[in-house]
């Protein structure tokens, strides 16, 4: 009886081992896997980027943070905050595409040149466009997502309307309705009640954007960029997409209202001052801000 049990357990364990042993190799990208993806390309305008041509630039400029295997586990990983992006996941903050989808090549191309404010990712505007396109291909070659999925379709951004007092007030209502204040605070100072509890998808603490300290939004600081950020969300972070909750016209209202928080001089700021606009009241009943 005991011998039968032993045999049964041995068989079970053996089967489990056969199933389990290959699993790490699914999860862990190897140099061999990367070599097989060296033919990855990117297309930005009329430029075609080739992953194989970016190897030297990646080694010179990027590997210290993003690591040899693109997993964000480079030498500087322990020291930098926010942590470097894990390219193997294929998840990116700055996209023109809907949440959950892959970014376009142009999105990655722009991110390299723009850098990511308040992080150790500088503005790599010193590359030629060809070098940048090659690096985009290189970034893509780390993740199997690009082999299996197509990038999302960029969202449509309607033309920017004229800034008016009504729009700013309407933007304030949107700010209250979708509860931006919970993270960003009622005055946009990143001190909302949820601010200290936020973590990214990997469980690392993350801070909401402070609109008032003069820093630039990570994914660009034009009005269109800000519009895009809350309509696509910042994947991998607690910042969701509000594409299903905010109509395009309301999104522009919200952009104008957010501008009133920012330290830079703006028409929106002047109008808000003229209106004597008060911060939203989190306790006010819906629609009575």
């Amino acid at each position, binding site marked *: 009886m005991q011998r039968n049990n032993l045999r049964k357990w041995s068989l079970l364990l053996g089967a489990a081992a056969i199933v389990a042993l290959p699993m790490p190799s699914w999860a862990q990208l190897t140099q061999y896997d990367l070599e097989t993806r060296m033919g990855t390309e990117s297309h930005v305008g009329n430029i075609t980027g080739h992953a194989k041509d970016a190897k030297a630039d990646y080694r010179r400029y990027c590997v210290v943070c993003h690591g040899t295997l693109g997993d964000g586990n480079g*030498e500087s990983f322990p*020291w930098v905050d926010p942590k470097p992006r894990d390219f193997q996941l294929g998840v990116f903050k700055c996209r023109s595409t809907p949440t959950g989808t892959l970014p376009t090549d142009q999105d990655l191309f722009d991110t390299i040149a723009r850098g990511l404010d308040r992080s150790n990712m500088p503005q790599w505007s*010193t590359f030629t*466009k*060809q070098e940048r396109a090659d690096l985009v291909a290189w970034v893509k070659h780390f993740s199997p997502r690009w082999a299996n999925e197509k990038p999302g379709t960029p969202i449509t951004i309607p033309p920017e309307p004229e800034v008016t007092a009504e729009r700013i007030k309407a933007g304030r209502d949107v700010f209250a309705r979708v509860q931006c204040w919970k993270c960003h605070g009622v005055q946009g100072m990143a001190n909302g009640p949820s601010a200290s509890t936020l973590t990214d998808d990997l469980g690392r603490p993350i801070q909401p954007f402070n609109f008032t300290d003069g820093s630039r939004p990570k994914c660009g600081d034009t009005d269109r960029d800000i519009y895009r950020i809350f309509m696509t969300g910042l994947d991998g972070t607690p910042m969701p997409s509000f594409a299903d909750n905010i109509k395009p016209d309301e999104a522009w209202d919200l952009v104008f209202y957010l501008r009133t928080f920012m330290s830079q001089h703006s028409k929106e700021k002047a109008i808000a001052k003229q209106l004597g606009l008060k911060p939203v009241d989190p306790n006010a009943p819906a629609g009575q801000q």
Partner: protein
Amino acid sequence: MHVSRHSRLRDVSYFGSLILIAVSVMLACSQPANALPAFARKYGLRCSACHESWPMLNYFGQKFKDNGYQLMNDRDAPIWQNPGYWPVTFRITPIWHRVSTGKVLVDTYGPTGTGGSQVTGSAIQRITTSGFDLSGLDFHTGGTLEKNFSFYVLPSSDNTASFHFETVMARLDNLFGSPWFNVKLGKFELDNLLSEKRILTLTGNGGIYQLYHFVPVGDGNIFGQMGDNQLGVEVMGHSWDDRTRYSAALLSTSDGTVGMPYGNAYTGFFAASQAFDTGKAGVQRVGFYAMVGEAPTTWLTNGGPSSYIAGSGAGNKTFSREGFVGQFYFGQHIDLQVVTQHGEDSAWFGQGYGDVIDGVSTANNQTGTVLPPGSRSPSWNGVLLEPHYVYSPQLIFIGRYETIRMSQQSTPGTASNLGNISTYTIGYRYNPFMTSRAGFAWHNEYNWLHQDGTGPTLGLSSTNVNTSELLLGFDFDF
């Protein structure tokens, strides 16, 4: 004779083998390149991000410097750093070198007499010296005091630990929120695109750019040396991607000497450049520079004609240096740096008037002094070509050719080639590792320099001097 030649050959082979073994061991021990001191510690970037090969800047490093040692990521202020961070890098280089100088005038001795050996005459001889040595020590400290307030302080010593301030400057960055307006005050390197302070070579003659220090034979003006850090104020600006950049500096005409020992003379330096995107070849940059200044030729004295009063210089005369700069890249491995220069000094300098404080000149342009008939402004042209082969961020091969040709001598009848310079340098730097705390390079270099007519004459019309230097060393910083 045969034995001697064989012996020398054997020595060379042995020596060469030692170098090969040393390089092989280093190659075998190589590790992935990581980061470097000071700024790299601050930003967690690898040294190769900013340096084509340390210390020479690449385009990204130039942009970082132009931004006031800032990445412009809103995390540049020291308040964002761990309080234990101290922005200091030390650099020193223990070396072995062999220096061979031709045509040195030496005494000759006759037979020993009752009074000892007698100097009976002179002869010309080559002197060759070899041995272990040290470079000076540099304490680099720089960075930001606050966002858009940057600084650099560099106490530097010679190899006897005698210190001076090589660089001391503070800079206001991005004034009015614009990268086009930055102001620097203090002692700093001129905005030379090909920076001598970041030169990749270390020998006595190859460790400087001759073009940046050229002074015609007999000329009393030492103030046009673009390679020396200068005291003054600089306004500098650039586009956000640093493709377009300019700088204009107003300098005391002192060649960077503190204490105002000269006179009330000023020099201007202007540089501008534009970079172009050329696809796979890389970013190419072309630019020009001009240095125009005045320097004193008249000095007050007290206690005799050679008792000059420091700071009393007057009778300012002009000088100029101007040229083009090119930084050309041919893919990720090969580049060529080019600098040209046309220089001209006032005839007064050409006739030996100028810096009496350092004893370069002994002539004083007092009231009534006239130049010798026919005196002309000395002028010259030069070019510097420096190709690099960057095998990887850890291994770079360096070559350089410089030539300077006098186009007009100050004194009619002087040999037209007097003072002409030609020099070649070859070498390589290999970094077996780079960590986020230190940098280390195995450096090997050979320089040969030829100058026309500056050797002792001994009755001949002129003799040329050839000097060569072989150097091996460990160039490290931490």
